[in-house]
């Protein structure tokens, strides 16, 4: 907080008014509504609703379909997070090292940030297409006949590759700025003490990057959960059928297609709890991150 501040009876409220109004109408109200309707069973035609307590939650959590989607979400999140973090870290370390062409590499590796997830999904649909996709042709040479949209495993694979592709730039940028924040004197001292570059990376650079890494871990989990909606929606071509979908996609499906308001709201509330936990962790880490640097 500032030591010197203005004092005015009305002005601060006026300044805050636009934001608070939007927050209340479009955030707090819908959230309260989601919590409320998660305890009700709504008639699909809109003729009233009945209070059912936690039935929606128990129904959701015990349904085999939800379990299947939750398992896929976990696997999907795991692969997207670790592959995109790993590849981005490798590229950032190399981009930090080379001198010739460094800025071209950086630009070429980060611009995909600006591609929208559904557009990435569309490109994925093209490249993994049964008839025209070069990736399918490529794997066919090894005897793997991919069937995107039909085969559960193949579709998951395509979704993960596309989501990783879309997420690498963010991780790359953060890792690179983390690496550039490591002081030259530390690096020089390390290179005098230890000749092996790989060992130096794991014992000096990697621990110094750990705060950035933890922070990115949360960002990536959030990404895999929420921001991949566009990729998934496009890649299942709006026909989820037997295809893999994530928990967030299921909220949308059950709410808008299935007209199961109570169930969809209960799922929303479960996800809100999850976001709550992730945000708290992220805040704690942020404090530490500031402390380190």
């Amino acid at each position, binding site marked *: 907080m500032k030591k*010197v501040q203005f004092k005015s009876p009305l002005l601060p409220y006026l*300044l805050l008014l636009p934001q608070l109004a939007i927050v209340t109408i479009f955030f707090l109200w819908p959230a309260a509504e989601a919590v409320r309707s998660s305890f009700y069973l709504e008639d699909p035609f809109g003729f009233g609703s009945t209070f059912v307590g936690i039935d929606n939650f128990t129904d959701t959590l015990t349904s085999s379909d939800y379990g299947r989607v939750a398992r896929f979400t976990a696997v999907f999140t795991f692969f997207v997070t670790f592959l995109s973090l790993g590849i981005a870290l490798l590229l950032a370390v190399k981009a930090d090292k080379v001198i010739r062409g460094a800025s071209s590499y950086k630009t070429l590796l980060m611009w995909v940030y600006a591609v929208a997830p559904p557009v990435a999904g*569309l490109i994925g649909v093209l490249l993994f297409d049964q008839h025209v*996709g070069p990736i399918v042709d490529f794997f066919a040479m090894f005897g793997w006949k991919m069937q995107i949209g039909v085969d559960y495993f193949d579709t998951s694979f395509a979704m993960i590759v596309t989501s990783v*592709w879309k997420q690498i730039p963010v991780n790359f940028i953060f890792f690179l700025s983390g690496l550039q924040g490591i002081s030259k004197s530390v690096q020089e001292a390390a290179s005098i003490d230890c000749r092996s570059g790989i060992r130096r990376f794991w014992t000096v650079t990697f621990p110094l990057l750990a705060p950035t890494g933890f922070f990115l871990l949360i960002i990536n989990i959030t990404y895999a959960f929420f921001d991949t909606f566009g990729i998934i929606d496009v890649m299942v071509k709006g026909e989820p059928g037997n295809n893999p979908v994530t928990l967030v996609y299921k909220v949308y499906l059950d709410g808008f297609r299935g007209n199961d308001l109570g169930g969809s709201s209960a799922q929303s509330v479960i996800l809100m709890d999850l*976001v709550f936990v992730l945000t708290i962790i992220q805040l704690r880490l942020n404090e530490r991150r500031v402390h380190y640097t």
Partner: protein
Amino acid sequence: MKKNLIWDHVILLVGVFFMVSPVVLTLMTSTHDAITVYKEGVQFLPGGKFLENYETVLFQAGGFTKEVDGFVMLKNSMILGLGFAIGKIIISMLAAYAIVYFRFPMASLCFWVIFATLLLPLEVRILPSYEIVQQLGMVNTYSGLIVPLIASATGTFFFRQFFLSVPDELLEAARIDGAGPWKFFKDILVPLSQTMIAASFIIMFVFGWNQYLWPTLMTTDESLFTLVRGIKQILQVWVGAQIPAFNEAMALAILAIVPPVLIVVIFQSWFVKGLVESDK
């Protein structure tokens, strides 16, 4: 040592290939005619239908959507991107100014209320949000498209962080010279924030431009479709078509990619600053 350096470049080049080639193939495919693509697969080299395909996609209504052409969608994307970025910057700067520079009762309550929005991504409160906006009669309007997206706390935090780093002496000096709150904001704080405004503008423009779920729900009227929203329409026509028009679909994808990518590449240093310092 020398050998290591070569390996570094090889790894980086493989990385660049992985990141760049999908979009290059998309671009190449968009310059051929539909039958060539259907027969021979995704194209690796430019074809002769560049102008034709892009003209069709930009100015002919009907191909994918019945009413609008790509140009209208481009315009709508621009409105969404700009409206979102400008609206959010103004609102969050005002709110951050109030939180940092004023002493008033309930200051921390207001802060926490705004903060709570971080806990509620659009995707988890999608159905009630839709219903509320519908009740307010804002479906199929630009304000219904933009305003509900604006209020998340990221921008407010970004500016709060920056305002806190502005030295206190500036305010003291300004007050001694008799500047009121509004004058201080307009003549000192806003000019000081220029770089921050530019940096967050880039992040927010790209974020607004790339919105998908909300526009998908909010706009059923085709004249309000954005390019990214139009993707879904492309697919629906695609799935049913005899010979899928991959070329035109990809031309539309390229149109959706180019403006935000140009902004990110041209203003790269601001973009990186905005991304790293706003902590997303």
